[in-house]
């Protein structure tokens, strides 16, 4: 299939074939995969597409293509060790409900691990243009 193909087929994402690898890595489509693994269960050839989708998202992330919400959550993990900053009101509610206090996370330790794989650098990279 060549880029010059006159006969273009719209796909579900509203884009047109053929895509270049650049289109894939710059687009939003790969981030619409919820990792539900239905395609892995369905595929008669055992392609395990969800894992390929995760790999593509990892590559896109290295090019700065990360949805804002995903970037925000990943940054919170890097900073605090947890995906969300738990508001004081929620901690109060725990107490009121008779729940034990939330265990504290050694955030420095988590950061050491995540920095070893360059998560901070990946998150700092903004998309071109």
């Amino acid at each position, binding site marked *: 299939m060549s880029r010059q193909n006159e006969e273009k087929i719209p796909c579900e994402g509203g884009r047109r074939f053929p895509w270049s690898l650049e289109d894939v890595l710059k687009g*939003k489509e790969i*981030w*619409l*995969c*919820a*990792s*539900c*693994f*239905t395609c*892995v*269960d369905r595929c008669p050839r055992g392609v*395990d597409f*969800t894992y390929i989708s*995760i*790999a593509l*998202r*990892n590559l896109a*992330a290295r090019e700065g293509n*990360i*949805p*804002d*919400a*995903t*970037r*925000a*959550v*990943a940054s919170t*993990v890097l900073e605090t*060790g*947890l*995906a*969300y900053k*738990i508001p004081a009101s*929620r901690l109060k*509610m*725990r107490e009121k*409900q008779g*729940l*034990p206090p*939330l*265990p*504290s*996370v*050694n955030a420095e*330790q*988590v950061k*050491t*691990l*995540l920095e*070893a*794989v*360059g*998560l901070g650098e*990946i*998150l700092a990279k903004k998309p071109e243009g």
Partner: protein
Amino acid sequence: MARYLLYLGCLIPYREISYEVSARRIARELDIELVDMPDFNCCGFPVDGVSHEAALLLAARNLAIAEREGMDIMTLCNGCFATLHHAALEMEEDPELRAWVNEQLAKVGLEFTGKVHVKHIVHVLLEDVGLEKLKEKVTNPLDKLVVAEHTGCHLMRPAKVMKFDDPDNPRVLKELIAITGAKCVDYPDEGQCCGGPILGVDAKMALGLVVDKLRRVREAGAQALITVCPDCHFMYDFNQPLAERQTGEKFGIPVLHYTQLLGLAMGISPDELGIGMLRVKADKVLELTKG
């Protein structure tokens, strides 16, 4: 007596406290001893798309802490369960990867050797407590109540890895619901994803999945939807008003954690099960389940 480290993850303390309240309450009744897991971090799922290596290290740190504590893990969340389980398998199958992970963990004084098992509360209810003992504990059968189930993807898929239930025709949660006396109705596409992981990427698309589900549940005649995952619950309960706004339809379908449903059937008061913390009010359900 079953004894587990309770791995809470992030979404439960952030938005789904009612799940924790009800899970701890029924655990007490069922002789499941829950020890709070110290120093846990995010399971890794939310960063998997950004860096699988980072997700793997987050999961591995949790597994290594559990090893140090010398106890198996119980999660309440499908996503946390799947991520920890996947990570353990990945490291078991790939000795080089495991060696690399342990090199990293050594920097913070931890080690993964693969000693610890990870279970979801559904596994614990089935395997450690058992259906027979659960039946014995039901003192307030909910036989006026009609519900639908949503098991959630990450407990069942991919089937070849999770080896649990049938993702296209889930049975396990139906069996657990049957024990409570409630009737569980079938509806099309029970295995469809809640859309939780893409809510932040495309809210319209994610809420569209919620609308799909709630329509089918309503058409099947269910008075409530039952979940076993905080993210699925967050989508169907907390975000139900947003889904209603998007579609212009009113659903008003209460969404209960299975632990709440079971608790009601065990005669535990709604207050002790965090029922009042649900966003979609469950007054009608309580009316029908009064002992």
